[in-house]
C-alpha cells in the first residue's frame, strides 16, 4: 500500500533528489518544481514530472506559494514535500496546502507558528519543563526595562528578535551602553525583516556546543527520539560537519537530553519529524535553542546509525499512519559522520559559483547525497552546498578513517570548494579527540 500517489517536491538540489529516491522505492510518483536556472539540474530529470515555476531568483520561483500550489494542482499531486529551507517552515504555505486539499508533509501550521516565534517557543518549553537559556520573561518594551533586566541577568547578553532567524536580528551586548545603542536598531531591523518588532534578552553562552535531537511523532500521540546529532563544527553559524553519537555526551547526560526533547515535542503537540536544537555550556548544562519543524540537512547521520529512512517516516506520518516503531524498538549501531561540501573559498568561506568541470567521487563504502554531477552549473542564486559525504563505521575512529579515505578519493574541478578544509578537520587532533565547540573552526585556524 502506498502512502500517496504523487508527491510534489517544493525544493531543489540534493534534498529533492533524496526525496525522489525514497518515493521511487515506494512506488510514488514525483513532481519536481524548478526555476529557469535549474532547468538542467539532475533533480529535474530524475522526477517523474517537472514544472518550471519561474525565474532564477528564489522569491520569484521556489518561494512563490501560488506558483507552487498551481503546479501541484496542475499535476494532481496529492501531497507536497517542502524539503528544508524555502517554504518548509512557512505556516501560510502549510495553510494554503490544506485549503487546496493537498497534504503538507510536515507538522501543523499552528505548531510552525509557535516555533517561528522565539518568545512563544521559550514559553511553551518552560511550561514543559525544558530548560531555556536564562533570559527575560517575554517581550521587552523599553530601553529602561531592558537595562533593568540586563542588570539582573548580568552581561554579556544577546538581544534577540522573537521572529529572527539565520543570524539576523541578534546582537551581542557587553554593557549597558551597547544595549542602549542596539535596542532600537534591533527592533527596527526586526520590524523591517520579519514584520514583528518583539525583542527579548538572553544570557550569552560563550564557547557552546550545539547538539540536537531528532524526534518523530504521529497523529496518535506517539513521540519517539532517534538520538542526537553533534553539530558544533560550524562556520558563520552554518554547520560543516555533523556526527552521531556526540562524543561530548556520557550515557546519563544523553538520556536526560533525549527525554527532555521528547517532553518538549509532546508539549506543543508536534507531529511528523522534527529537530530540537540545544546548546551546551562549559559545565554541561543544556538549554533549548529552537525547533526545526522539518527534515534537516544532516538527517543522513541519523539514518546511518538507526537504519531508518526518515523521508519514508515523513510520508507515512503525513498519510495519517502510526509510527512504525516504538521507542524500545529503535536502536543505534556504530558511528556516522557527515561532511558538507560547499562551493566556496576554504579560507574566506566566500561563495564560488561556476561549472563542475570534473567530479571524481569515491566509489564505495560511502553515501553521497549530491545536488550536482559532472558538468553541472552551480549558479549564484542558491545555497553554496553542493553535496554531502556520509560515512558509517563501527566506532568513531573507524568512521573518521573512512571519511579521510572518502575525501582523499574526491576531486572537484571548475570551482573552489571546502574539500581541503574538510580533509584537515578529519586530521585535526582536537576533532579526533571529540574536544570541540562552535568556536572550533575560528580558533583552530585549520587552513591558515
Amino acid at each position, binding site marked *: 500500500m502506498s502512502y500517496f500517489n504523487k508527491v510534489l517536491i517544493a525544493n531543489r538540489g540534493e534534498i529533492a533528489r533524496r526525496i525522489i529516491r525514497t518515493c521511487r522505492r515506494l512506488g510514488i510518483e514525483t513532481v519536481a518544481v524548478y526555476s529557469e536556472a535549474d532547468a538542467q539540474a539532475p533533480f529535474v530529470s530524475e522526477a517523474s514530472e517537472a514544472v518550471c515555476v519561474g525565474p532564477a531568483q528564489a522569491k520569484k520561483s521556489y518561494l512563490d506559494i501560488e506558483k507552487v500550489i498551481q503546479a501541484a494542482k496542475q499535476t494532481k499531486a496529492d501531497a507536497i514535500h517542502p524539503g528544508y529551507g524555502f517554504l518548509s517552515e512557512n505556516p501560510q504555505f502549510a495553510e494554503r496546502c490544506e485549503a487546496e486539499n493537498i497534504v503538507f508533509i510536515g507538522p501543523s501550521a499552528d505548531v510552525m507558528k509557535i516555533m517561528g516565534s522565539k518568545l512563544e517557543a521559550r514559553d511553551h518549553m518552560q511550561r514543559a519543563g525544558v530548560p531555556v537559556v536564562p533570559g527575560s520573561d517575554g517581550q521587552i518594551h523599553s530601553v529602561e526595562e531592558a537595562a533593568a533586566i540586563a542588570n539582573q541577568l548580568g552581561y554579556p547578553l544577546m538581544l534577540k528578535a522573537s521572529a529572527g532567524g539565520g543570524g539576523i536580528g541578534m546582537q551581542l551586548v557587553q554593557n549597558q551602553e551597547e544595549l542602549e545603542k542596539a535596542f532600537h536598531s534591533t527592533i527596527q531591523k526586526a520590524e523591517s525583516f520579519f514584520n514583528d518588532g518583539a525583542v527579548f534578552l538572553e544570557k550569552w553562552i560563550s564557547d557552546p556546543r550545539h547538539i540536537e535531537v531528532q524526534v518523530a511523532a504521529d497523529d496518535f500521540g506517539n513521540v519517539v527520539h532517534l538520538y542526537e546529532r553533534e553539530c558544533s563544527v560550524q562556520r558563520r553559524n552554518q554547520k560543516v560537519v555533523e556526527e552521531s553519537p556526540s562524543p561530548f555526551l556520557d550515557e546519563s547526560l544523553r538520556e536526560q537530553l533525549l527525554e527532555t526533547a521528547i517532553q518538549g515535542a509532546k508539549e506543543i503537540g508536534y507531529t511528523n519529524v522534527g529537530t530540537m536544537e540545544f546548546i551546551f555550556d562549559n559545565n554541561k548544562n543544556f538549554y533549548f535553542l529552537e525547533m526545526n519543524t522539518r527534515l534537516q540537512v544532516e538527517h543522513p547521520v541519523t539514518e546511518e546509525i538507526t537504519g531508518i529512512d526518515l523521508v519514508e517516516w515523513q510520508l507515512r506520518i503525513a498519510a495519517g499512519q502510526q509510527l512504525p516503531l516504538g521507542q524500545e524498538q529503535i536502536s543505534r549501531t556504530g558511528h556516522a559522520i557527515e561532511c558538507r561540501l560547499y562551493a566556496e573559498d576554504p579560507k574566506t568561506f566566500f*561563495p564560488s559559483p561556476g561549472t563542475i568541470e570534473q567530479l571524481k567521487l569515491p566509489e564505495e563504502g560511502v553515501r553521497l547525497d549530491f545536488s550536482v554531477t559532472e558538468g553541472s552549473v552551480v549558479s*549564484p542564486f542558491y*545555497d553554496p552546498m553542493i553535496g554531502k559525504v556520509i560515512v558509517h563505521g563501527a566506532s568513531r575512529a573507524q568512521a573518521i578513517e573512512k571519511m579521510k579515505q572518502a575525501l582523499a578519493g574526491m576531486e572537484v574541478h571548475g570551482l573552489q570548494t571546502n574539500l581541503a578544509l574538510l580533509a584537515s578537520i578529519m586530521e585535526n587532533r582536537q576533532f579526533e579527540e571529540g574536544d570541540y565547540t562552535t568556536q572550533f573552526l575560528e580558533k583552530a585556524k585549520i587552513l591558515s
Partner: protein
Amino acid sequence: MSDQKNKVLSPIPGVFYRKPAPDKEVFIHEGAAVKAGDVIGLVEVMKNFYEIKAESDGVLESFLVNEEDILDAGQEIAVISAR
C-alpha cells in the same frame, strides 16, 4: 577638459540591489557625489551579500543595471565621472 569616466564592475555573478533592505532608501541616487569606498549597491551570491564600492571620487553619473537584475561576473554596474 573632458571628464574621466570610471566604470564600477561586479567581481561576482549574482542579483543586484541598490537598497540595503527592501523598505530602505537606495544607497546613492544618480547624480550624487560619491567618494572612493562608498557602498553603491549589493550583489547577492549564494545567500551572501557582497558590497559594491566606488573605487574613485566623483559623481555617480548613472547606473547601468536595475534593481534585482541578474549580473554576470565582470558586468558593468555604474559610471562615475571624475570632477
